[in-house]
């Protein structure tokens, strides 16, 4: 997949035939994908789809039942320790030591990466500045707000300047501002050449951050491609025409028929159709409706969202609440 984005470098992540079961539950059921170096992959799926299990296997926290995982050219089972020195992980929970200060947390993580105390301290200071935690640096993390904890957690994941960063639902439970901050951080990291794999159940997040998206449901990849490619899979632009009070919707359907491959549908005075092309569509629609003598209250042309994609691919909405992932 994603061959159109391949560079000279080998892929930063290569996953083949990945399997993991818990008892009778096949949490991950034969997953393959590659992430080119320096790109962002969005692993998109509802709760319980197997996203966290995939991340746990890619970060060596869990051993696959079958299949092969290579991160930064290293085998996740055979070369686990070396692999760990090249990655960063920020999980669903802010994994910080609440009894330590922000600065102490980062220093500890740096030292556990093998840095000297002085180097770890200096790197920690850099990150505290980058993540706007300088003022809180000397306070125990237990006094931090949820957003600050997440920032500290992300900073901890970046201590060793990892080549590959794993973010497991990084914005779940974050307030809108912190969410935007995190997006900006991911974009900065990508610009600096870091490969990022992020899982999310938020479609707008994948749409905004990911160069390519892999959709996972019930442990299987059901689609992959760029955001645009996925949207194209569920068809082209949607045109919605809200007719003025009393306008004949059947006449509107007839008037718009030549613009679509399928017969437009109407409901409560709103006519919907899939159009073949984007350019000139609105002008053409207004002209046709005007010629038919129909008054229009509102016209909207929109691209299909990833919500449409998910609904089409899985038959259920992406953000539907399902029981928590057994492995979460």
């Amino acid at each position: 997949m994603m061959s159109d984005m391949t560079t000279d470098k080998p892929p930063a992540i290569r996953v083949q035939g990945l399997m993991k079961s818990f008892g009778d539950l096949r949490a991950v059921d034969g997953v393959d994908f590659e992430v080119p170096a320096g790109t962002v992959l969005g692993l998109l799926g509802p709760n319980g789809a197997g996203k966290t299990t995939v991340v746990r296997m890619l970060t060596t926290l869990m051993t696959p039942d079958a299949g092969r995982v290579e991160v930064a050219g290293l085998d996740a089972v055979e070369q686990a320790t070396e692999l760990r020195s090249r990655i960063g992980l920020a999980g669903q929970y802010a994994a910080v030591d609440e009894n330590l200060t922000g600065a102490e947390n980062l220093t500890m993580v740096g030292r556990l990466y093998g840095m000297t105390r002085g180097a770890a301290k200096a790197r920690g200071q850099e990150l505290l500045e980058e993540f706007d935690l300088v003022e809180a640096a000397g306070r125990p993390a237990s006094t931090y707000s949820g957003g600050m904890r997440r920032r500290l957690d992300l900073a901890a994941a970046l201590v060793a300047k990892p080549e590959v960063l794993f973010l497991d639902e990084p914005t779940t439970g974050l307030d809108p501002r912190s969410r935007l901050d995190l997006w900006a951080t991911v974009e900065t990291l990508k610009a600096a050449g870091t490969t990022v794999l992020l899982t999310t159940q938020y479609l707008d997040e994948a749409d905004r951050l990911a160069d390519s998206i892999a959709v996972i449901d019930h442990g299987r990849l059901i689609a992959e491609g760029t955001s645009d490619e996925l949207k194209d899979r569920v068809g082209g632009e949607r045109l919605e025409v809200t007719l003025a009070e009393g306008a004949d919707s059947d006449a509107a359907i007839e008037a718009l028929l030549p613009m679509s491959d399928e017969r437009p549908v109407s409901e409560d005075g709103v006519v919907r159709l899939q159009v073949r092309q984007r350019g000139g569509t609105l002008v053409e629609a207004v002209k046709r409706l005007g010629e038919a003598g129909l008054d229009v209250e509102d016209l909207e042309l929109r691209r299909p969202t990833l919500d449409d994609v998910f609904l089409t691919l899985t038959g259920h909405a992406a953000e539907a609440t399902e029981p928590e992932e057994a492995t979460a």
Partner: protein
Amino acid sequence: MPRILSDMLIIAERNLVRLPRSPDLLLAVTVQPVMFVLLFVYVFGGAIQTPGFDNYKDFLLPGIIVQNIAFGGFLTALGLAEDMNKGLVDRFRSLPMARSAVLAGRTSADIVTNLLSIAVLVVTGLIIGFSFDAPLQNIIAGVGILLLFGYAFSWVFALIGLLVSSPEAANSVGFIAVFPLTFISSAFVPVESMPSVLQTVADVNPFTITVDAMRHLWVGGPAGNAVWGAVVWSFVIFAIAAPLAVSRYRKAASK
């Protein structure tokens, strides 16, 4: 320094710096033992006969110190239960550190807090009239036995902390599992004063053996095989609890 050792020290340090910031924990390792010494000496002391010892203080101090040291491991149970709950174990496991350092560092930190408890208890004892009746090397050997016994129990508490689901549960399960053992022993009253069933339990109880070893080393009580027995028991407890805790840690952490 080998990696495992330096990682262990980093984790131990991390577990120790929290102590001065957690007044509740600090009270638990300092004021609480002192309170028990005072209560036992002045409430029960007059009623308990301790043939062969100058007074109840000399009898009690080695006993209560062993009890306290065994319970010193509760910090490990608490800390590990917290780390598991808060996802910190995942962070550690994603780092290129020695994996065993998480448990080894946590239990090693108890050695430092146990030393603090020993110091506080000995000073309290000396103030209220306890006196050593042994050569210096025996007194030092006694401290060694206390630390060894405490370290073995840190692994028992490590196992408890990894088995339960929350720090609160770690506290109460640890208490229920270890507290009766400390009482059905020679720690607080002479074993001969108990009903015969309890005497049987008390006689083989590692607490009795370790307390008797301490009495021999610190106040010249009868030795028997208690000193070697105490060392052997510490190793046995360690040899059972540590592999169980490690395997439980591996299982729980990889979920």
